């Protein structure tokens, strides 16, 4: 062995990831990145059964510049993500660009090591039943890093699955943390003639499934404050008002505008009205039907879609809507991400069973319409697949 010149080493990067079992259905992961430029730590908890991200905490020890700290809050946007198809891409795109690619890389590293751990735990649980099962098989299967959560999961104990914050029902928990989950896009009969759900039934269903509030967004119809107040009192539930307004450029969810709008309005004109009223505009299901023939056939790329002028006239984009395809939602998400627009989720329910399929999780407490507008403008929210999450918890 020959001694060399010290200046040969130009860069060193260390990553260390540790995974342990916090409880029957929760894995704790501590990830460390230490290199010549960056020093960061990330703590992630994931559900063992669903490989869903339950919480993320990030911290810089050393960073490239003084503004790197801005990246930390955006990590929260990955809470609720489940490992499955497109997970890696989603984290890389969303967290990697809005937050920081080094944080995104470590988040992925933590999640994949949690998945490895889940497989080992599964193998340990199953090998009693199936002594022939080799770890090799369990680890190699679904080898695709973007493959889904583990199916046929055998958890050794049968305690109810938890979300990490004890056994409180979800809505209670949300109240404590100030966090609220609200379905921003709900239609009721007879205000929306296309809906089969009475407003009373809809509200009771929303309460039953544990939503913290709903927003009535009937088509071109304005509920009066008095009507809504009466419903709130009757059902002891947060009911907010919005409007789904049809414009020349498609449907828009409008909040904070009392003025009644009739017929189809030009998007530009609507924008003026909303700005005047200090309201908020969400472009609803922006690519509904656009992708029927596949992105390739239409030649519509995310980049081209980003150039559509209508995005200049809205504050946010609905990227989780239960009336469009997965692909259309995903495409909307990519466009919004590219344009750095806020994103929301809403069921677009026209029947009782549809309420809460998607919703928006706000970090802020919302008690009334003023709070809602403020929270929407502040931007601390993410779309969530609420019913799916609820099923898991019940």
């Amino acid at each position, binding site marked *: 062995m020959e001694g060399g010149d010290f*200046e*040969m*080493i*130009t*860069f*060193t*990067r*260390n*990553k*260390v*990831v*540790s*995974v*342990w*079992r*916090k409880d029957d259905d929760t*894995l*704790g992961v501590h990830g460390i990145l230490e*290199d*010549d*430029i960056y020093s960061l730590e990330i703590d992630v908890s994931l559900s063992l059964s669903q490989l869903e991200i339950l919480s993320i905490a990030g911290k810089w020890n050393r960073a*490239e*510049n*003084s*503004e*790197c700290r*801005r*990246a930390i809050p*955006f990590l929260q946007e990955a809470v609720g993500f489940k490992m499955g198809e497109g997970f890696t891409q989603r984290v890389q795109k969303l967290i*990697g*660009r*809005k*937050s*920081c*690619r080094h944080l995104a890389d470590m988040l992925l*590293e933590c999640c994949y*090591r949690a998945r*490895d*751990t889940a497989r*080992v*735990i599964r193998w340990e649980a199953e090998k009693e039943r199936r002594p022939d099962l*080799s*770890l*090799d098989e369990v*680890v*190699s299967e679904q*080898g*695709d*890093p973007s493959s889904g959560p583990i199916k046929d999961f055998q958890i050794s104990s049968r305690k109810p699955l938890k979300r990490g914050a004890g056994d409180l029902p979800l809505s209670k928990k949300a109240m404590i943390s100030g966090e609220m989950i609200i379905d921003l896009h709900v239609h009721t009969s007879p205000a929306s003639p296309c809906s089969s759900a009475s407003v009373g039934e809809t509200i009771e269903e929303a309460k039953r499934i544990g939503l913290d509030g709903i927003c009535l967004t009937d088509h071109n119809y304005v509920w009066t404050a008095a009507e809504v107040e009466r419903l709130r009192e009757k059902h002891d539930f947060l009911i907010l008002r919005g409007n789904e307004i049809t414009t020349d450029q498609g449907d828009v969810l409008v909040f904070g505008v009392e003025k009644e709008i009739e017929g189809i309005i030009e998007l530009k004109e609507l924008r003026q009205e909303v700005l005047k009223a200090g309201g908020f505009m969400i472009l609803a299901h922006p690519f509904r039907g656009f992708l029927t023939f596949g992105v390739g056939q239409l030649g519509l790329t995310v980049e081209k879609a980003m150039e559509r002028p209508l995005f200049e006239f809205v504050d946010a984009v609905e990227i989780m809507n239960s009336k469009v395809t997965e692909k259309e939602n995903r495409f909307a998400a990519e466009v919004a991400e590219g344009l*750095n627009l806020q994103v929301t989720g809403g069921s677009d329910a026209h029947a009782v069973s549809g309420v809460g399929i998607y919703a928006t999780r706000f970090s802020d407490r919302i008690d009334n319409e003023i709070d809602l507008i403020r929270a929407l403008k502040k931007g601390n929210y993410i779309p969530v697949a609420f019913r799916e999450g609820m099923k898991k918890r019940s």
Partner: protein
Amino acid sequence: MPEILSFSRNICTVVEQIGDDSMTSSCRLQDTLMDAYVEISVKIPDLEISGIKGRLERSVIGEKIDVEDAFKKIMGTRVGPGIRKIIRGFIGNSATEKQLAYMVEECCSGLILSFTKDHLKQIPKDPKKAKHAFENMVKANPRLYKSCAALSPGSPLVDNIEFD
């Protein structure tokens, strides 16, 4: 009380300059399931991959893999933007190969970051001057704008920059 680990991983990537015209970047991965080593060599200044070595020291997966054979498709590729996509496209049918591909990515990241480091060393300590240096960096490379939270609207590092 003790929270005993179920899984542990350590990855160490080291970049070395070998003489004036080449660099190597090596990645060692040790975790509960495997232990492997990957090393790539690149020519300076074009950063084309001119050599690749690797060995699998331990793995719970029985799969037999000729690491160097698996990697030969990326020989000659230039380390730079887009390399990740190329690596993932060429390597990685099996679980083991995917991990090895990831290690090659780590080697490439390390190489790129070693140049970033040289660049950052030039940035003055004085916060005002540093802000100016970052501003110029983004102006010179608009791809950086909105590429992360620190370089997005709202951050003082880019508040004098208008690309729209």
